[in-house]
């Protein structure tokens, strides 16, 4: 009888305390994350997901000892220690599916905001849905310049866009002709002035093609071929033939993962001999691409994060080590930007102190995150609120890296900006 009474008392106590405990327990803040987790860009999706998850784990206090503000709060301090919960969705590179998933996240899952979507074409439709419903969306990794030219009130982008990156490329090429590149004597401009570009033909790639054409003209380079191709194409031999026929000194690419790999394999099979190969990040910055081994040595890629950045930023080294523990390889441009995107969400929520969309909107428009908090080598994050690029981070910056072989391993070394170059550039490319 006594046991029954004790049991009943404990049960009663538990019943009475349960609601109070539930009430005092930190709330969850749901962020919808839409990435390409399957399809041609699945490799990128895996990196993006891991980057966002790592940032959430750090923000939620699951990984102690990281030297950044969000790691010290164990949740969103201004919201009573509420934890970040990520709800992942796979858009498969399909803009219509992305829009449907955005509606689901907003209306069914009641997310506070959205992070995504990598493909600029999907970001375009998803941000249009977010705009219609007045839900904040932070974009960390879509680089089509048009995205921040639409005057949207609920869309913010942390990454620099392709106009900046393409300008970096032409600054680099000009620097090459002026002897500014570490380890390379000035190359006469006429030896590198003939260019050929092949870009995948969705929103992102077609924009890169436009930017390349525009900057080539501005910087006095000759664009002998400017090809658009389908990233899902199973054969790129006719595109590569056209590139080779243009006899360029430099071949420029905007490719997703599977097509970037196919492009290099096809260049090799056709024994292409350009002096420079440059890729606009994306596929050129993925572990699967690096797995091509010696075939990628000497290739340039723009990025916002290279492992050699860790030599300059101890914080980047700390986070990179955690990422290696999680994934078995270094952070790359995609994962570092996904990390930064989610980190921006955490800072914004902290500043807003509320999950009300209007408060978040205000926080986004006024926030400044210093560069010392970030893993990417940017001055910081501050979104433009006027002019023709509303919602664009104005403190970002890009890098150009080159694959080099060090100790039997293929690594990316910084070659641009010139003042932070970490190795001598290999020039010219030995060709295939």
């Amino acid at each position, binding site marked *: 009888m006594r046991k029954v009474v004790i049991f009943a008392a404990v049960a009663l106590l538990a019943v009475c305390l349960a609601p109070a405990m539930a009430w005092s327990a930190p709330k969850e803040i749901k962020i919808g994350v839409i990435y390409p*987790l*399957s399809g041609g860009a*699945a490799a990128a*999706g*895996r990196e993006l*997901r891991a980057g966002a998850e790592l940032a959430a784990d750090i923000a939620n206090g699951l990984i102690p000892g990281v030297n950044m503000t969000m790691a010290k709060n164990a949740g969103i301090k201004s919201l009573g220690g509420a934890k970040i919960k990520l*709800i*992942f*969705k*796979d858009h*498969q590179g*399909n*803009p*219509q*599916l992305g*829009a*449907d*998933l955005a*509606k*689901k996240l*907003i*209306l*069914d899952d009641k997310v506070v905001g959205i992070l995504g979507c990598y493909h600029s*074409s999907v970001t*375009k*439709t998803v941000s*249009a849905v977010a705009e*219609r*419903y007045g839900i904040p969306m932070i974009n960390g990794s879509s680089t*089509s310049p*048009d995205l921040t030219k*639409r005057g949207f009130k609920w869309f913010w982008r942390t990454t620099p866009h392709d106009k900046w990156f393409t300008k970096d490329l032409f600054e680099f090429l000009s620097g090459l002709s002026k002897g500014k590149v570490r380890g390379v004597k000035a190359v006469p401009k006429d030896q590198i002035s003939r260019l050929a570009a092949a870009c995948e*033909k*969705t*929103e992102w*790639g*077609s*924009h890169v093609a436009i930017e390349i054409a525009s900057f080539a003209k501005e910087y006095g380079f000759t664009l002998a071929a400017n090809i*658009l191709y*389908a990233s899902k194409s199973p054969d790129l031999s006719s595109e590569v033939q056209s590139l080779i026929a243009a006899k360029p000194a430099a071949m420029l690419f905007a490719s997703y993962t599977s097509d970037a790999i196919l492009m290099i394999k096809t260049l090799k099979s056709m024994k292409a001999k350009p002096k420079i190969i440059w890729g606009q990040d994306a596929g050129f910055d993925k572990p699967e691409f690096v797995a091509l081994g010696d075939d990628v040595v000497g290739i340039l890629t723009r990025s916002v994060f290279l492992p050699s950045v860790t030599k300059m930023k101890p914080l980047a080294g700390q986070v990179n080590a955690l990422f290696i523990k999680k994934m078995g390889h270094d952070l790359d441009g995609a994962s570092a930007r996904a990390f930064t995107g989610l980190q921006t969400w955490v800072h914004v929520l902290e500043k807003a102190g509320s999950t009300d969309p209007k408060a978040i909107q205000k926080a986004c428009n006024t926030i400044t995150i210093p560069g010392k908090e970030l893993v990417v080598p940017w001055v910081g994050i501050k979104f433009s609120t006027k002019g023709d690029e509303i919602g664009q981070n104005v403190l970002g910056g890009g890098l150009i890296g080159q694959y080099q072989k060090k100790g039997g391993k293929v690594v990316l070394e910084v070659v641009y900006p010139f003042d932070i170059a970490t190795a001598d550039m290999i020039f010219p490319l030995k060709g295939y």
Partner: protein
Amino acid sequence: MEAIRNAFDFTDLPRGEMIIAALALLFLLLFPVLPHSSFAMATMIQFLMFSLYGMGWNLIGGYGGQVDLGKAQYVGIGAYTTALLMIRLDVPFWYSLPVGLALAVIWSFIIGYPLFRLKGHYFAIATIATSLVLKDIFEVWNFVGGARGLEIPLKGNLPNWLYLQFKQDYYYFYVLLAMFLVGLIYVNGFRHSRLGFQLRAIKDNENVARSLGIDAHWCKIKAYATATAFVAAVGSFHACYNFNIEPEDVMSLDLSVLIALMAMLGGAGSMWGPIIGAAILVPMKSYLGDWLGGKAGMAGMDLLLYGAIIMFIAAVQPRGVYGIVEALRARRRR
């Protein structure tokens, strides 16, 4: 007059089918007021869109037996006409819809005339080629936005019936449901029409049909143009629903194949086939993706399962799901 009477004459259909159809219609009419998630609503809209695509495909592919794998080009023409007229000339949806239909039908005559000189696989390959060529042209044509496509801006306050711009999806659902019912009634009339019978005769044996005085070439062109009108109308709707179109989205080979697949899997050549196909494949694709697509370590599993189920149905009954229904019915009669 007889054509209208035929269109509303469902008396030749089995009673069981009519009861199921009536219940399904009641469900569709009431769906927006029943408890549902927004994802379910988006899936229902996709279902109605693919039903209409499939109904169009079925006219030429099912009743006519001409496997058309290039329907996406007409989706694109409808979508781009509406978007361009809306963006550049501020033309409301209801005016741009018939313009899109007319352009698509004209294009179908231009394409159809030489294409129907071909037969069987050659015809199927030619439809793929024409669709891909048109897509390639659109991808490099700056006037239509090139590969980046077009984005339709919001026109004033929502809901906007003139420009078909709504915040809540149930408006789109009812507009599409109305189009679906018109389409269904048209297909029913088509079944009983002279052209419908001629097409079925051509499908069974083209030489015999010709010997009976049927102009097979002209019949196919007419059916192809009618099928085109269906998909172009949905294309126009798609532009307004999605606010954004690009060639990869509305003119891709994937879309053409999906349209044909749904109709074939449901049962080509039957009135309900494309609807059954869409009712199975659209929710399956959406919910498998939602269930498995975002789960860690399960990337791509939804697509594997989706493919496996399609292969299973095709292996059990090559005539599609409606073929299974007919086989069961025949067995019961015996």
